[in-house]
């Protein structure tokens, strides 16, 4: 049996480090030992195959709680999921979650003194199409304070969770908004050394995605790990 083709290592500097002192919660949670290199096997090169039948999509976060409209600025968030070979990743599940327009999560752990919106839960799920495209309709999330340091505020962001074709391609990340002054002060965003890698976490305002009299459009393209072509595919 031939060995599975491994997914390529991450480019140096383009991923954050576990030990990120400016983000206080990493202090007691980052491993001290060097990671143990594991050549990828079938366990790492295969992964779950979610289907819309078993995992129903919910692409409209503005009404998916009660059927009534959530408060806040409607936005369209869309983009393409591709791999490092610039090939689209089709039929992959994309999950998002976020704070509401006031900067409050519908979560018992969030005690920020900002109002909840009974019509906004803040979670959605879609699958990419055959060309790797996804699209959500949601509410622009608000900024919120957090206890990391004095006067710490998270920039506006939407959490993204993606799977791709394999256990090795799992990605959880955050999408930020262009021009947010808080990005400069955020240790989570700043935790990735490579400036271009950070910039790629910032969505682009997109007039082509924007719908007249309805909602602004933001484009957020996502790249999952790729691997060298197999002889069969070459």
């Amino acid at each position, binding site marked *: 049996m031939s060995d599975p083709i491994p997914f390529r290592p991450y480019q140096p500097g383009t991923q954050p480090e576990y030990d990120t002192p400016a983000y206080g919660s990493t202090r007691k949670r980052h491993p001290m030992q060097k990671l143990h290199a594991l050549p990828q096997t079938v366990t790492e090169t295969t*992964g*779950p195959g979610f289907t819309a039948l078993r995992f129903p999509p919910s692409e409209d976060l503005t009404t998916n709680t009660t059927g009534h409209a959530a408060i806040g600025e409607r936005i369209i968030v869309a983009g393409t999921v591709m791999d490092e070979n610039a090939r689209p990743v089709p039929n992959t599940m994309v999950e998002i979650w976020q704070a509401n327009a006031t900067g409050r999560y519908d979560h018992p752990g969030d005690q920020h003194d900002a109002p909840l919106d009974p019509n906004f839960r803040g979670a959605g799920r879609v699958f990419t199409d055959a060309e790797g495209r996804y699209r959500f309709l949601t509410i622009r999330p608000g900024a919120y304070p957090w206890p990391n340091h004095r006067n710490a505020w998270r920039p506006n962001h939407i959490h993204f969770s993606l799977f791709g074709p394999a256990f090795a391609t799992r990605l959880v990340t955050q999408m930020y908004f262009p021009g947010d002054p808080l990005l400069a002060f955020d240790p989570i965003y700043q935790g990735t050394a490579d400036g271009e890698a950070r910039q790629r976490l910032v969505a682009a305002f997109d007039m082509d995605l924007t719908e007249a009299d309805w909602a602004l459009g933001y484009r957020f393209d996502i790249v999952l790990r790729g691997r060298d072509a197999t002889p069969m595919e070459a």
Partner: protein
Amino acid sequence: MPIATASQTVGPYWHLLEDPAWADLTRFGAAGETLTLTGTVIDGDGAPCTDACVEIWQADPPASDSFPGFGRSRTDARGEYRFLTLRPGPVPGRGNALQAPHIAICVMARGLMKGLVTRAYFDGDALNETDPLLMSIETPARRGTLVAKRTEGAVWRLDIRLQGDGETVFLEI
């Protein structure tokens, strides 16, 4: 060429995604020998991590309409994750090697900028003695951090120590 998007922490509010049913990999009617995999996620102070997202993936039995092969569990107020799944069999390794039965684990949490990957093997399995990953870990005590112990019946426990004494072997894949 495009470069892979940077990871960002899953944070403390990922439960907005949570469907507790996902921790039961038999919920679609999978038949076979079941087991419970449970354990505590522990930080560098020895304190339980009560807000973690633990995910598992197994290549065996093969995923199907009745068996997703994938599960997600929160850690509870005691820091415990818990899955019900099918017992995996051995799967091929690289070259002509055979891997002992195992379940891949990814831990995500507030304070983890990226997921931490590890594996659960099963104590007492004869194939553990020749498993390529286990054999590549020189210190027996460290190797043991990947080996779940049977506590009762079909319940297997693997604690995950993020940092410090008894730190789990985490994998670069």
